[in-house]
């Protein structure tokens, strides 16, 4: 059985769901961040898969590589986001001695 686009899409869907569950349910802030990075990975995988299996026959290689360029930008933004998020985690830890997201509830009342 040859590997088709659907294989990659379902793999991306499963990876995205695992990441979504982690981002929703994990208690530790770093765990939430791991889930977010996993979702980024799933979406990037779908981008690359759509770029490898094009829909129109008259697309040039440069047009098909737009997906790759988009993935580069996603990775850049993910790196910036991870740096800022981990700095925020350090800041919360310095004030509260915890990075559990269910104990960051000062704004709750």
């Amino acid at each position, binding site marked *: 059985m040859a590997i088709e686009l659907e294989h990659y899409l379902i793999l991306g869907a499963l990876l995205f769901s695992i990441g979504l569950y982690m981002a*929703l349910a994990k208690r530790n802030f770093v765990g939430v961040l791991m889930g977010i990075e996993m979702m980024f990975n799933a979406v990037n995988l779908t981008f690359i898969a759509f770029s*490898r299996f094009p829909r129109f026959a008259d697309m040039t290689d440069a047009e098909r590589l737009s997906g*790759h360029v988009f993935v580069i*930008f996603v990775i850049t933004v993910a790196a910036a986001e991870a740096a800022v998020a*981990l700095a925020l985690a350090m800041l919360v830890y310095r004030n509260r001695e915890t990075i559990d997201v*269910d104990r960051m509830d000062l704004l709750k009342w």
Partner: protein
Amino acid sequence: MEDTGSIVAFWLLAALTLGSALAVVLIRDLIRAVVLLITSFLGVAGLYITLSADFVAVVQVLIYVGAISVLMLFAIMLTPRAGRNNAETFFRIPGILLAGLMAFTISLVSLDTDWAVVERGGFEETASAIGEALLDKYVLPFELAAVLLLVAMLGAILLVHPEGTDEE
């Protein structure tokens, strides 16, 4: 994508990626979770290679495996008195339900849709074409990304800089 080697490679890499992603969810110790997350990232890099995306695969190894995972390890190590366990909050059951619904819906849609793929074969090599696209068609987002990285780096330094302890 017909030869046996690429099919075997796809299934092995898919099993590696999904298996270590599941292990990241299930394992209790955060440090081990990060190490397994690195394995998952490496599996995704291998999948990029099966899709003939060589440059993106190298970038994935450099940035995700090399940089972001190390940042996460730093964050875990620098918060020593915080909980080191990887447990769930009370959102566990809704999280499982929502994630399962998401996976089911996307899989159903991707199986149900006629993607009308025209098989074109892989790319010869992608790095030079990506470089030309970044400096030609996408030059404005490219420059904005440079500014974004600079601002994010400055912001991260400023946030964790200890107050009142200027140098000297």
